[in-house]
């Protein structure tokens, strides 16, 4: 068969038709949409924090997380003793956060949230704090250090 002079056009047409059949892999769409949803969530968290939220200052974080693990354990013990002895009107006070995850994990968190709340003392048991059963229903004010993904990193018991 003789080759026509416009054979290049013929083959470009074939290539065009073949190319039109090629579709991107599905994982790309999932990744893009997921990334967008994450960006929207972070934006909303910044605009509407879940509670009285303030990011701890870099200096505060350094002091807090620079303590050795043994000091954190002692503080936890002290807080537990205060909880066990303090009457309901007097809120237990602990100046520093007690780490609930390895310090390296906390230090690696770039922008943790501090969420203030009141929780029943009974729930402190799940954090490893001894609780007097007689006062398990009473509330205690606490501040939780939470990662951007919602993991509780540390807790401290705050004054009024």
């Amino acid at each position: 068969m003789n080759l026509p002079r416009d054979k290049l056009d013929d083959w470009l047409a074939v290539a065009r038709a073949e190319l039109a059949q090629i579709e991107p892999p599905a994982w790309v769409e999932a990744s893009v949409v997921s990334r967008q949803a994450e960006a929207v969530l972070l934006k909303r968290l910044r605009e509407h924090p879940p509670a009285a939220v303030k990011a701890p200052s870099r200096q505060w974080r350094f002091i807090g997380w620079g303590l050795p693990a043994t000091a954190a354990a002692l503080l936890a013990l002290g807080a537990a003793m205060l909880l066990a002895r303090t009457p309901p009107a007097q809120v237990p006070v602990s100046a520093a956060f007690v780490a609930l995850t390895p310090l390296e994990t906390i230090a690696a968190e770039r922008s943790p949230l501090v969420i203030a709340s009141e929780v029943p003392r009974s729930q402190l048991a799940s954090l490893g704090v001894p609780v007097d059963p007689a006062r398990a229903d009473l509330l205690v004010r606490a501040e939780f250090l939470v990662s951007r993904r919602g993991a509780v990193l540390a807790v401290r018991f705050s004054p009024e």
Partner: protein
Amino acid sequence: MAFDPRMTDESDVALLMRCAEGDPSAAAELYRRHAGPVYRFVWMVTGSDSEAADVLQETFIALLERRSGYDPARGSCTAYLCGVARHLVYRRFDSRSEPVAEIEQLAEDSADSAASLLPPPHEHAERAQALARLRAAIRALPSHYRDILVLVELQEMSYADAAAVAGIEIGTVRSRLARARARLAELLNEPMAIGRGQGT
């Protein structure tokens, strides 16, 4: 696959505004509209499924994070995204070697079968091989010719949008397209008509 930017320009802007307001469905709709042409452009230029997928992902993330970058007065959203993708491809290949082996292989093949490198398209036995050869020849073109050829000839993009993608004048698109066709014909070792009807 042809696209008509006039049908999507206004609503693309509206979709981007919805994205900015946090509507997750807007991002998905934008992706469905434009991912195909962007992916095919990058795939044709790089010849790699994984490169094309990675660049496509980066392109859309760039669009969603810098929503103000798209100006409908300068071209369609597809053209804008192809321009972003083109930039990302060049940035990736800046740190790598050019696909020299492919070019050398092409030259070797040309010497072996100079008489008839491309059979008529209806000869299916040789069709896949010839098509692969044509793609290799397109990828072996200088990038400024190759990109215009892929956009206009294979993606059926208008000259104006191709100009927006490459950041050049429409007249330059015409001349580069003519030279790209001539160079492609040379690579395929067969004299072919350079002139062709005007694009859209």
